[in-house]
């Protein structure tokens, strides 16, 4: 990963994409790193496609614009898969996708041969563990498997802090499961 890691999450309003980037940023902070987390700000409507961004670095972060060439892209909702989610990616970009399809089919839908693709069935995991198709934390587990951008321990700690009690444990559990199940292309 580069000195400044730029992350872009694609989700739908209500799926907790911004919460997810906040958790990543807080986990980084816990490790003594600098971080940023912000959504692509639009009218907040449940179900509408939204973006959330995070930046993580060992140095203070001066840049204050959107992320155009992400090092990590994650897609929280399979219905969002398409060329739009791979805009601006580089050869080294890690793409983590919530899908039940094989990587070859995902590639076809994305329309790119660039980037390193990881897949996980986050919707199934979220339904099993949390009981709702909210995939943000499952996708974080998969991102960490693919990149180690922060440690699993840091993420679990901030997740328990953020949700607390039973929801904290369930989210921690779904993070672990997705971490185990995410597979590279």
């Amino acid at each position, binding site marked *: 990963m580069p000195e400044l890691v730029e992350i872009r999450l694609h989700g739908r309003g209500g799926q907790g994409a911004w919460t997810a980037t*906040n958790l990543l*940023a*807080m986990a980084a*902070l816990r490790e003594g790193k*600098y*971080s*940023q*987390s*912000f*959504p692509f*700000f639009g009218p907040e409507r449940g179900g509408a496609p939204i973006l959330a961004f995070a930046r993580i670095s060992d140095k*203070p*972060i*001066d*840049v*204050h*614009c*959107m992320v*155009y060439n992400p090092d990590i892209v994650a897609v929280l909702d399979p219905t969002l898969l398409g060329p739009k989610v791979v805009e601006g990616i580089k050869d080294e970009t890690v793409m983590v996708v919530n899908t039940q399809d094989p990587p070859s089919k995902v590639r076809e839908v994305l329309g790119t041969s660039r980037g390193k693709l990881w897949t996980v069935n986050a919707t199934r995991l979220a339904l099993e563990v949390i009981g709702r198709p909210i995939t943000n934390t499952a996708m974080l587990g998969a991102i960490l498997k693919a990149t180690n951008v922060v440690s699993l321990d840091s993420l679990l700690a901030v997740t328990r802090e953020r949700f607390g009690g039973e929801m904290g444990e369930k989210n921690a559990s779904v993070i672990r499961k997705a971490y185990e199940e995410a597979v590279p292309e």
Partner: protein
Amino acid sequence: MELGVAKQEVMGLTGDEAVAYAVKQVDPDIVAAYPITPQTIIVERFSEYVADGLVNTEFVPVESEHSALSTCVGAAAAGARAFTATASQGLALMWEILYIAASMRLPIVMAVVNRALSAPINIHCDHSDTMGARDSGWIQLYCENSQEAYDTTIQAWRIAEHPDVQLPVMVTLDGFVLSHTLESVRVLPDDVVKRFVGQRRYIRVVGHEYKEVPLVLDPENPLTLGAFGMYTHYFEYKRQQAEAMEKAKRVIEEVGREYGGISGRTYGLIHPYRLEDAEVALIGLGSTMGTAKIVVDRLRQEGMKIGLIRIRSFRPFPREELLKSLSHVKAIGVLDRAMSFGAYGGPLFMEMRSLFYDEESRPLISDYIYGLGGRDMPIKLLEDVARDVKRNADRGRVAEPIRYVGLRE
């Protein structure tokens, strides 16, 4: 006061949360506010602090921004420390009270989360709201990041209440880009903040029924504030306001230095970056100037002699400091995130061009209007701006004085 740099906790805070946290630590007497996007988080967080009993502040949930600032005016005149926060249309609704707060010399602190003005309705960042208020008599300090929003909110009280100043202070932060962006923020311990801001000091009124009293509304020692002032006195009031603004420059620097002593983060009127040998300079306000640092670094690697100045204090305008810092620069690119319709360029451009009028050697100055209504200013676009300024420097004249960048035409 020399305390040494305090041990600081690192928190993940949005710009709004950073402001609310600073206000919590200052614990003012009155907070009167009306929520408006993207300032809402400030009011929400602060009302939680009130509900949780973490502050002694009286929180006044008013029905409009006009009332919010009016409440602050009354409270500050009665000797209280008063705070409010707003954005865009909310600031617009405060308009007549803005001038009253400044002219009555009330040291109110207000966070303004920069947001475009309607129409069309828009909730995102530009500087149209506070730029419109630039002649209202408020000190205006523009922040680059969430850390600075926290730091400046604390410093603002000391600046506003300084006996030589006695003026209200606007602390501005870019809507969403800062207000809703979680960043690493180092926060001082409560007691260090309390010691730094101290108690509000009052101007003394001499000769009040043969004695000296503090300049506050007090039934025991009645005073009239903000009274009728005809052509016999009004003009002198205004001249004194101008004098206070002038004196505020020194105070902003002193307070910024003293704050550096306790936090390790020193602030001034302007913040230059890699400017020493620069031929080309970018100049602007707010969060975009953080992104511009990346651009300066990249172009320096290519060999371009470029630097930048971020203006922290737009009011008072740091005339001498800018002239001194820019004396060796050939060409300046001004970044304006607001328009002045019918004028020749944006508000900052007009200041910059006027600044050099009396100078023997004047740099070439071009204006780049950008980011209205929250349009993003990516690195690539800023690089284009920098290259355009460089071309002006190379050819020795400004090809196009006013350009709109990132605009579909």
